[in-house]
Structures are given as structure tokens and as C-alpha cells.
């Protein structure tokens, strides 16, 4: 049986007295692509550094390919790409050749591999240029070429393109994903952009406060967020506590807005649970286009412009809601509008840690 590419067991990383990462168990197959998502300070970069054997762990064990005895040799089977791409003084060629020379590979063989890595990212014409004279996009290409020149088996991507604009980011990520799939690499991507991470990876690991709060496929994480932190990271705009009324036929959204229980998805097994839904699920100003339940009249408190339509903050019977304003609809702050909820889009937040680790 092929050993797992990465196995973490009871790993704890401490900074002083404070635990910054605590992972009970994480196992990743060879060739698997994993996205690590979490808020700032969740321990995403620390997790990547721990996987890459780049920092001491206070407890537990990190095994790569089933081994842990020779950290330097194992570390050399990985490559880490940091956000800004830190380079040493010198040319693009010298920087890309560095990982090879650190492994004792020099001369014609090294030059051939450097040439191949540069061509892979269309950097051949920049080989002699000092790295300090590169643009942001060029620097990231060099960063990737340097990471891949040693043919690593595990690629650790720590927000590699966050300094680039969306178009450049998407383009580079697509290019990189194709290379990773073609070479069958095990890859970890840390990203602030959930959609980007979800597109890139087969598995999503959600981190909060140094712990894995949920992991699974995109459908699992989006469809069944295990707690509020995950629901927020996934991008649900509305998180409301729901209570089952005494008649068992009505659910009070935000503990106030009555909705027929039959209109909502199954899952409110307990008497009280958090529900999550996007701003798109809340319809205002127009007659609803699909099956919706009426929430009554809402008052527009604030309108925040956005590329995909403005987000309208509403007060609906004392409950704060966010709705997306469809194009062509005009509303002013203070205006009153009927509000509907596309109840099929509502998801229950399970609140426990079932399934996580």
C-alpha cells in the first residue's frame, strides 16, 4: 500500500506558552490537492511550515511518505512558495539554480534543469535579469520556477498570488494547477479567497484558532458547515439563530421572524440551531422569481456597492438581514420593501465538531 504523502498526528506547535497550532490528525494521499482556508491568525501558514518540517513541533509527529527520521532529506522533497517570493541578491537564473546547488547539483545538469523550469513559466528571456528588477507577476513566476526546479513531490503554496490582481492570480493559478495535475504532485494551497481555494482543491481544510474545524469536499463544506466560523469562511452573508416554536410548525428566524417549518430544509432536529444563507437568497423590491416565503416588510438601513450588485442591509422585524440588490432595482436608504426568503437556499449549521478530525 502506498504511504500517505502527509500524516500529522497529535501535532502541537507553540509560540512561547501559546499554542498556535493543534492538529489531532490529518492525512493526505499522494497526488491530492488540498486547500487550507481560515481567517487571519488561524494557523494556516504554521500548518504549512509544520508539514514542510520547517519548524519544531512541541508535541506529536509529522510523517512524510511514511517517514520522519531524516528531516533534511524529507524537507528536500517539498517546496514552499511564500507570498512575496523572497530572493537572494542575484539574477533570476542564480535564484532558480539555488535549490539545486543546495542539493549539490551544479554544472550542465543543473543548467539544463534551470532552463526547463524557466521555460515552463516563460521566463527564458528574463534569466539574466536581477530579481530586484522584476514586476510582481514576474517575481511570482520566478518563485514558482524556483520551487519546481527540484521536482518536489509536495508543493506548499502559502497565499502565493495574493499580491497580484484577480486576473493575473486566476491565470497563474490555472497554469500551476495544470502543472500539479500533470506531475501528480501533492499540493496544499493557503488562500484568503474561498472560491479560488475551492476551485483549486479536491479537499478543503477549514482552520480556526489553530485547529481544524472541518474538512471535506466543496459540497460537504458548503452544504453542511459544521459551525459558524466555517459558515462565515464559506461566505454565507446571513447567520441567524432559529427556534422551533411551541406549535412545532413554525420556525422563528433570528428568534423573531416566523416561517413555516415545512418550507425549510429538514435538519432542525434540535429546538434551536443556526442557519446560514447567502445574500442572494433574500429577495427584495420585486416579486420573488422562485419559491420563496414572505418575511414581511424590511427597512433599508445601508447599501454597500459591489461588482455583483449592491449588498443591502435590512432591518426586517428587528432581525438584521443582508440581501443582494439585483441590477435595475433602485432603493434608497430608509425605504421600506417587502422581503422574501428563498428557503431552499438555507443551510443548517450543525454547531458541533462532527466530521472534523
Amino acid at each position, binding site marked *: 500500500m502506498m504511504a500517505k504523502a502527509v500524516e500529522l498526528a497529535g501535532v502541537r506547535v507553540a509560540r512561547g506558552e501559546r499554542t498556535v497550532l493543534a492538529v489531532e490528525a490529518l492525512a493526505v494521499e499522494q497526488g491530492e490537492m488540498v486547500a487550507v482556508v481560515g481567517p487571519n491568525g488561524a494557523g494556516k501558514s504554521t500548518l504549512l*511550515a509544520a508539514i*514542510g518540517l*520547517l*519548524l519544531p513541533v512541541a508535541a506529536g509527529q509529522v510523517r512524510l511518505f511514511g517517514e520522519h527520521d531524516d528531516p*533534511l532529506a524529507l*524537507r*528536500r522533497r*517539498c*517546496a*514552499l512558495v*511564500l507570498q512575496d517570493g*523572497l530572493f*537572494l*541578491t*542575484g539574477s533570476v537564473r542564480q535564484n532558480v539554480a*539555488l*535549490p539545486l546547488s*543546495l*542539493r549539490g547539483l551544479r554544472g550542465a545538469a543543473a543548467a539544463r534543469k534551470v532552463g526547463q523550469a524557466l521555460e515552463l513559466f516563460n521566463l527564458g528571456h528574463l534569466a539574466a535579469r*536581477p530579481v*530586484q528588477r522584476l514586476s510582481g507577476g514576474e517575481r511570482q513566476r520566478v518563485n514558482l520556477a*524556483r520551487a519546481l526546479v*527540484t521536482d518536489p513531490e509536495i508543493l*506548499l503554496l502559502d497565499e502565493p498570488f495574493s499580491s497580484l490582481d484577480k486576473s493575473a492570480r486566476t491565470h497563474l493559478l490555472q497554469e500551476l494547477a495544470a502543472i500539479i495535475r500533470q506531475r501528480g504532485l501533492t499540493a496544499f494551497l493557503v488562500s484568503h479567497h474561498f472560491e479560488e481555494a475551492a476551485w483549486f482543491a479536491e479537499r478543503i481544510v477549514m482552520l480556526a484558532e489553530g485547529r481544524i474545524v472541518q474538512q471535506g469536499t466543496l459540497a460537504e463544506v458548503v452544504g453542511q458547515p459544521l459551525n459558524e466560523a466555517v459558515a462565515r469562511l464559506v461566505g454565507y452573508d446571513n447567520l441567524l439563530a432559529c427556534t422551533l416554536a411551541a406549535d412545532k410548525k413554525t420556525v422563528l428566524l433570528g428568534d423573531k421572524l416566523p416561517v413555516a417549518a415545512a418550507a425549510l430544509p429538514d435538519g432542525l432536529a434540535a429546538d434551536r440551531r443556526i442557519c446560514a444563507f447567502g445574500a442572494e437568497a433574500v429577495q427584495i423590491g420585486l416579486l420573488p422569481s422562485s419559491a420563496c416565503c414572505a418575511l414581511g416588510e424590511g427597512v433599508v438601513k445601508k447599501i454597500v456597492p459591489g461588482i455583483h450588485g449592491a449588498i443591502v442591509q435590512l432591518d426586517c422585524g428587528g432581525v438584521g438581514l443582508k440581501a443582494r440588490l439585483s441590477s435595475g432595482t433602485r432603493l434608497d436608504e430608509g425605504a421600506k420593501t417587502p422581503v422574501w426568503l428563498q428557503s431552499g437556499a438555507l443551510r443548517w449549521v450543525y454547531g458541533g465538531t462532527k466530521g472534523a478530525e
Partner: protein
Amino acid sequence: MTYIGQGLGEAVRLLLQLDPAVLKVAWLTLQVSGLAALISVVLGVPLGCALATRRFRGRGALVSFVNVGMGMPPVVVGLLVSLLLWRYGPLGDWQLLYTPWAMVIAQVLIAAPIVASLSFSAIVSLDERLPLQLLALGASRLQADRLLIKEAKLGLLAAVIAGFGRAVSEVGASMMVGGNLKDETRVLTTATVLEVGKGNYELAISFGLILLVLVYLVVAVLTVLQQAGKRGCS
């Protein structure tokens, strides 16, 4: 004011004639301070690098100790070395007091903390994530340290310049532990002090001038190296 002109003239004459007595003092100065600077670099650069890149118990105290060493009064160093090397002192058996070796030891104690502290500053001024990036590229600890030192070479050359400058300009401790013995431990600084005391301003000026030229030449070489490194960065 004429004695200044006479002094300068005498200095130029001594220099042009390559006066053996003067050359001997200049050569000993270069040997003692050059060796002291070299030992200070060998001790100070790795110490500064280790303080900058390693985390260990007592690191903060050691950084403070090195920084205190930067401001150590030379006479205190001279006193310390004298007490250690005195005939009945802990290292008295070595019989180094009033030899050039005693002067080297004193100058190392004065210059090494400066080299260590400036090396520490040069390394910590690099991006704090650079050590992590180097390890991630497959560097061993030693390879990473070597690359960090290479990357901080501008700052490290400044540390070497400062270390040599401090060693060669030192007079109090050298006088105390060397004794300013003619043909044995007399260096340019102590010779200058002696000649001023005797009222031989011409000779004192010539020694001072030679000291300036010597420092200028050594620092010029190091500066050329530093600027060559800087051009490589642009």
C-alpha cells in the same frame, strides 16, 4: 603654529625616507590590530549570526551583554587583561603581559563585541522570513547561515571596518598591557602619546599621519569591497 608645519614636514620626510624606526612601529601596529580585527571577525560574525538566527535560553541576556561590550571603556579592558596576565594572575604562567599578544587580547576584547553587535544588526535587518525561505529551498542550517551571511555582506563589511577602526585606534588598553616598550610593543597610538608627552610634536604628527594613512588604506580596501557588493545588489 610653526611647529605644526615643521611637524608635517618632518612627517613627510620620515615617510619618504622610509625611516626604519617609524616603519617598524607602523608594521607592528598593522600586525597587532590586523590580527585583533581578524580574530574579532572570526569570533564576532558567527556570534552575531547565531544571536540573530537562533532562539535559545539566555539569548536576550547575551545580546545585552554584547551591546554592553560595545561601550566597554578601554581602560577597564586594559585593567582586566592586566589582572589576568599579571605574573601572579590566573594566566600569569603564559608570560604574555607587555608583549604584542597582550595587546592583541585587549584589542579583541574591545573590537569583538562591536563586530558581533553590528553583525547581529546586519542579519536581523534582512527579511525575517528569509531563514524560513532558505530552509524551504532545501538548505541545511549551516547552508542557510552561510547564505544569510552572504546576503548581509554590506552590513558585515561595515562591522569589519568598525572592528578594525576600533582596534587600531585603541591606546589606553594597549598602553596598560603592552607597556609601550621600544621595538617590542610600541605601536602608532602609544608612540604618538609618548612623543606628545616628550614634546616631540614633529614625531607625534608623523606617527599620527601614518596612522591616518594606514587606517585610510585598510578602510578604503574594505569600502571598495563593500561598494562592489552594493553594485551587485542593484
